[in-house]
């Protein structure tokens, strides 16, 4: 199952914005030979029914990600800081709008 010369162009990751003001979310990936083709393919593949008001395409090779095996130690500095959550604090009885 070694990689064999692919004639479909490099892989791109596609992010769509569903409504203006909303964050961009990963929609999927596709093959294209350049960025214009990537954008047009992304439109035809991920927004045939007006699902997007905005589109980003990024070469998959440029994405940097946390390795799954490293995820636990990478994220654990946040684990013991419960004072970052509002529920950590006691609100005196009778106080409102806090």
């Amino acid at each position, binding site marked *: 199952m070694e*990689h064999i010369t692919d*004639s479909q162009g490099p892989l791109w990751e596609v992010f769509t914005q569903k409504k203006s003001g909303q964050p961009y979310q990963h929609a*999927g*990936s596709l093959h294209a030979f350049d960025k214009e083709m990537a954008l047009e393919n992304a439109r035809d593949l991920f927004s045939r029914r007006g699902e997007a008001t905005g589109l980003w395409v990024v070469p998959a090779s440029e994405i940097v990600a946390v390795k799954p095996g490293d995820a636990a130690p990478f994220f654990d500095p946040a684990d013991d800081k419960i004072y970052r959550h509002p529920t950590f604090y006691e609100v005196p009885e009778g106080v409102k709008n806090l």
Partner: protein
Amino acid sequence: MELQEKLDAFQQYIDAEEKIEPKDWMPDEYRRHCIRQISQHAHSEVIGMQPEGNWITRAPTLRAKKILLAKIQDEGGHGLYLYSAAETLGISRDEMIRQLHEGKAKYSSVFNYPTLNWADIGAIGWLVDGAAVTNQLSLRRTSYGPYSRAMLRICNEESFHQRQGYEIMTKMANGTPEQRRMAQDALDRWWWPALMMFGPHDNNSPRTYNGIVWKIKRAGNDELRQRFIDKTVPQAEFLGLKIPDPQLQWNEATGHYETGEINWDEFHRVISGDGPCNRQRMEHHKRVHEEGAWVREAAEAFARRRKAENLTEAIA
């Protein structure tokens, strides 16, 4: 970690309904199972464009033609979602297409039947897409993350396919006697192939066990087939059409329809290449792939030149 420990941790993770992502450790057999299932699913979407494509130039109205074009375009898109999901497991798109052309990868046997009259387009949407969506709704919960996400997207789009098919059937079943005869003829020919789409009985399906334990599949072949039968029989009754199965009957006690046995000889014959249209489907796919080679080469050359030009500009 010892292999057994890794396997146990993997199983626990899956039992907790967590999703497996591309870079996660997974047993080789899990990877192979996913590649086989997802690529077969992708090939089915793409080969499935052919029987419907047969009617684009002969659709009875402009409205019908536009709908059919949109539906076939969706099927192509579904193939692309699935190829991408399979690629995350380390197989290239080229390799999958090669496996298809060499007959090593299969696609759903249902697409090896011909579309003989316009009602067949209705029957495909209603029955073939209806069966596919029954399977795909269940697969939304598959344990492999990219596959699950592709299924969610596909299910959202498939609901239009089934409705447009049923609309055609409704029109034909309520039309002239000749149209009505065509509708019944289409049902007669597509009913059994649609039931075969769910695959062999579970006690006869060697891969069901692993697939269920690893939650790649979320329901057995027979259970999914029964779900499809139970929802489809009343739809046929509404059309006033007759399901071509003399043994079909409602079982009050179980709350399910009972059917006659599927012709498994036919199933195995068509799966192994000897159906009415196998050769035609594969020849068409190979020809179009080869004829499109120059487009891919030109696009690659263009991208290379643009890159070189940009580099020169950046230096200057």
